[in-house]
């Protein structure tokens, strides 16, 4: 079922009604997931502890590098902590809202569970991408924000208002771009039947976001800007808060790219869904 079908359905006379109904549904998904987290408190506590321990361990290389060097390619330890903070925050957001859903797409296709999603009166792409939420993972996002604050305090300078606005826009656009990239990888399950290993590799690609893209050779910088866009999600927002963005046009480009990515991602899903023959019929 695509967006146009929803708009003309008796449930939603207008596109605005469709949006409102989908927003209401998402609110219900979040409410259910909160109830689930409260029910399994030990698991939620474990998730929080795991996130904290992972953050501490992930900082070890950064602390070691800067015990040997004052600056690397124009980035100080405090600056890199800000980059790592943005990476941690994005990973937390992805883990809360995107990853639980992307990991299930392979299962939907393999087992034929997608049938159940397709017959529901909602957009199937939206439902498959938003149905599952893990609120406990948001702790990682907050710890990322804490790390950004520590980096800025360590740096001893206050970011400008413009820098803060630019950082928020870039961070949001970077999150959308990464979510779309992950969605495209997961959607490949329609051709390969299982993309569990592929999405696992995408998890490994979260690692380079902890460092400014300037640390890597040009080919990898290009990869981290255009394919797995960590430049937009962590490096550029950190640059806006610390040094100030030297290229202001990155902000509108990030917004335009994220809009294009959402459109492209949805288009890719529509192409993929045509291949689906159902495992149960």
């Amino acid at each position, binding site marked *: 079922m695509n967006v146009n079908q929803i708009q003309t359905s008796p449930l939603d006379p207008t596109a605005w009604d469709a949006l409102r109904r989908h927003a209401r549904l998402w609110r219900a998904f979040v409410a259910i997931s909160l109830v689930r987290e409260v029910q399994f408190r030990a698991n939620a506590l474990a998730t929080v502890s795991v996130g904290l321990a992972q953050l501490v361990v992930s900082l070890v290389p950064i602390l*070691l590098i800067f015990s040997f060097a004052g600056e690397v390619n124009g980035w100080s330890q405090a600056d890199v902590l800000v980059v790592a903070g943005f990476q941690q925050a994005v990973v937390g957001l992805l883990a809360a809202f995107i990853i639980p859903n992307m990991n299930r797409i392979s299962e939907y296709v393999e087992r034929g569970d997608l049938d159940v999603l397709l017959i529901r009166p909602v957009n199937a792409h939206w439902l498959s991408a938003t149905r599952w939420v893990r609120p406990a993972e948001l702790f990682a996002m907050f710890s990322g924000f804490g790390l950004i604050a520590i980096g800025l305090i360590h740096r001893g300078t206050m970011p400008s208002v413009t820098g803060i606005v630019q950082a928020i826009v870039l961070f949001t656009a970077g999150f959308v771009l990464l979510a779309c990239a992950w969605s495209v990888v997961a959607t490949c399950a329609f051709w390969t039947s299982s993309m*569990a*290993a*592929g999405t696992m590799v995408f998890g490994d690609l979260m690692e380079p976001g902890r460092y400014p893209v300037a*640390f*890597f050779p040009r080919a*990898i910088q290009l990869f981290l800007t255009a394919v797995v866009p960590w430049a937009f999600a962590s490096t550029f927002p950190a640059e806006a808060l610390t040094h100030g963005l030297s290229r202001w046009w990155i902000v509108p480009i990030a917004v335009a790219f994220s809009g294009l990515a959402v459109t492209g991602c949805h288009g890719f899903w529509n192409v993929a869904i045509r291949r689906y023959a159902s495992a149960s019929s």
Partner: protein
Amino acid sequence: MSLMEILRVIRRLVVGGIAGSLAYPGDFAFYMLGTIIGPIIAAFVWRAAIAAGADLPVDADYITTYFVLLSLVTMLASAWLSVFMADTIRDGRLNVWLARPGSYLYEIAANNIAEKVVKLVILMPMIAIFAWFVRDSLTLDAAPWRWGALLVSTAMAAMIFFWLDVAMGSLGFWLEDISGLEWGRSLLTGLITGQMIPLALFPAWMQGVLHVQPFRYTISFPLEIVVSDLSAREVMTGLGVQAGWTAVFIVAGLSLWRRGLRSYAAVGA
């Protein structure tokens, strides 16, 4: 069963395991990509630090060669079986193996070897591409005896990890879920095996502890044999210590496995 019979069983299980693994070449390619991504990132980050004038206790050649060989040694040494083993115990699938003349341990050992054969074939071209990109400071001209010692050391590292995984998996006889413990283990070993950072880069005050702990002998020591200037005597001493740790892990793994089998009570058992 005699040793020859056991080896014959394992050989047949390995052949079957390779055939089974070849059914999922795409998945294995992704897994190997995941194995090499970490070392690639770490290599470039540390090389950037060196290029920026960082005063490390090791040079760019050490760092580059270490990280190029890291994914190979990590893959050959790793075991990745404890969670599967605990699941097999918990859901009663172990019953099938108890009714057979061969131990379940032969199956998991054969599965591990078979997957490593397939992974090696897939991983080597990836390592070759990575090596080509960093060829400016890659030094693979260690003496032949060092490469031989690396092989021996990696084999012992594989034994350590295998029996550690058997010990962890055997906890499934008593615990409902070992994934939390497994996660804690992987986080800790990632740091103290040298998988995340070469141990030589840790502060001087930590070197003493890092050098005597057993996990150094799983990833770091095999690599040190070819990338550092350890003398022949130091390598031989290290191999001796590693053999000692291997024996400790074999005894620990076997003890837990046998003790667990005695207390095993699953559906149908």
